């Protein structure tokens, strides 16, 4: 039998006016805080949309062209590397857009081969306002506390740095999840805070479950009214 396909799953589609709106919104967020002339521009866009209730969730892939930049303290990429491949998730609720996720990394092979460069995440909360001056220090302090609490050891200084950058991105992501939760849950540092989403899925979750219930079982008899 063919694999079960969820009714809201869609193939990636080339850009349409509907996809362009959330893509432009994502780019605006990406560019927030930059002066004219230093802003990145949108290249190719493709995407898909899932709808439920009054909202739509757009998953987008886009190339983003960075303007030439010569200041190494400011540039996202070295001078010769201008194109980024980004994935965005934009939620549209009643016409109001929110950027839930944004990950950008170099697009060309030469850059991808360079192991010193990694895809980096950015999130709306990081871009919404200028970061507080002590943001990094607070994060470092939180990360140190995390290492002590969960007894973490890393093989090298490089790995520790890499894990800290994941931790920082995860903290911002936890804030986003917190902001969108309609219950009373609190999200924040957990023992999984130094894992990428991909690592977390691979090590702790169960991809087979979405294939369906598996073996057919008989339906349980309902409980009678006492």
């Amino acid at each position, binding site marked *: 039998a063919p694999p079960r396909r969820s009714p809201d799953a869609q193939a990636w589609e080339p850009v349409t006016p509907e996809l362009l709106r959330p893509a432009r919104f994502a780019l605006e967020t990406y560019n927030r805080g930059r002066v004219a002339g230093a802003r990145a521009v949108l290249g190719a866009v493709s995407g898909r949309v899932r709808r439920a209730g009054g909202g739509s969730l757009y998953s987008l892939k886009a190339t983003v062209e960075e303007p030439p930049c010569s200041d190494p303290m400011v540039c996202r990429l070295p001078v010769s590397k201008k194109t980024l491949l980004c994935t965005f998730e934009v939620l549209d609720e009643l016409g109001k857009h929110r950027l839930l996720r944004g990950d950008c990394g170099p697009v060309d092979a030469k850059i991808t081969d360079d192991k010193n460069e990694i895809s980096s995440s950015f999130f709306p909360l990081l871009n919404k306002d200028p970061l507080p001056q002590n943001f990094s220090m607070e994060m470092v302090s939180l990360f140190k506390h995390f290492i002590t609490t969960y007894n973490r050891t890393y093989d090298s200084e490089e790995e520790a740095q890499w894990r800290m950058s994941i931790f920082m991105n*995860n903290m911002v992501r936890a804030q986003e999840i917190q902001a969108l939760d309609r219950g009373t849950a609190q999200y924040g540092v957990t023992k999984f805070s130094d894992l990428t989403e991909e690592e977390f899925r691979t090590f702790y979750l169960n991809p*087979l479950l979405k294939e369906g219930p598996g073996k057919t079982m008989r339906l349980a008899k309902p409980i009678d009214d006492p």
Partner: protein
Amino acid sequence: APPEWDWRNKGAVTKVKNQGMCGSCWAFSVTGNVEGQWFLKQGDLLSLSEQELVDCDTLDKACMGGLPSNAYAAIRTLGGLETEDDYSYHGHLQTCSFTAEKVKVYINDSVELSKDEQKLAAWLAKKGPISIAINAFGMQFYRRGISRPLRLLCSPWFIDHAVLLVGYGNRSDVPFWAIKNSWGTDWGEEGYYYLHRGSRACGVNVMASSAVVD
């Protein structure tokens, strides 16, 4: 259904376990259910072996994932479950070392439960903890409280984690399911996850099942 219920207070739930870096949640969900069913039928709470399922359930894929429905079938084919003490958990696939002589618990059948949360609550209160599967959105960073992600972000079509419903109730008028997870007691509320009840949050209602012990 009664307004609230908690099998933890009634001795039907073993301590929170830890699956480690292994996608064996399906095994923990099913053994948790069988532990509860055995307790309710035989009056004896035994901690049962997940490693037996990881190693010997050839219908599933050990640390790469599995389905509760397959696990029930495997338990019946094998002849039952050994205890945690006799076949302890290592968190990776090993050669199957199941021995029928050590079986302490058997099951006779397995059933699929209603997708109606009210009926699930009624079933739980009368029959015991329920094996379920959910979309784990946000659980990487969950600390406490009742989780209620937007349906759009926590779609019932992307189920990726099996757990155990052990109770339900209300906290300050917010209805919840009490869910036993298998990520150790240093995650969530002493290893438990609380999810909004009545809104089909994260697909909590889509894959409910139970073993049957006669």
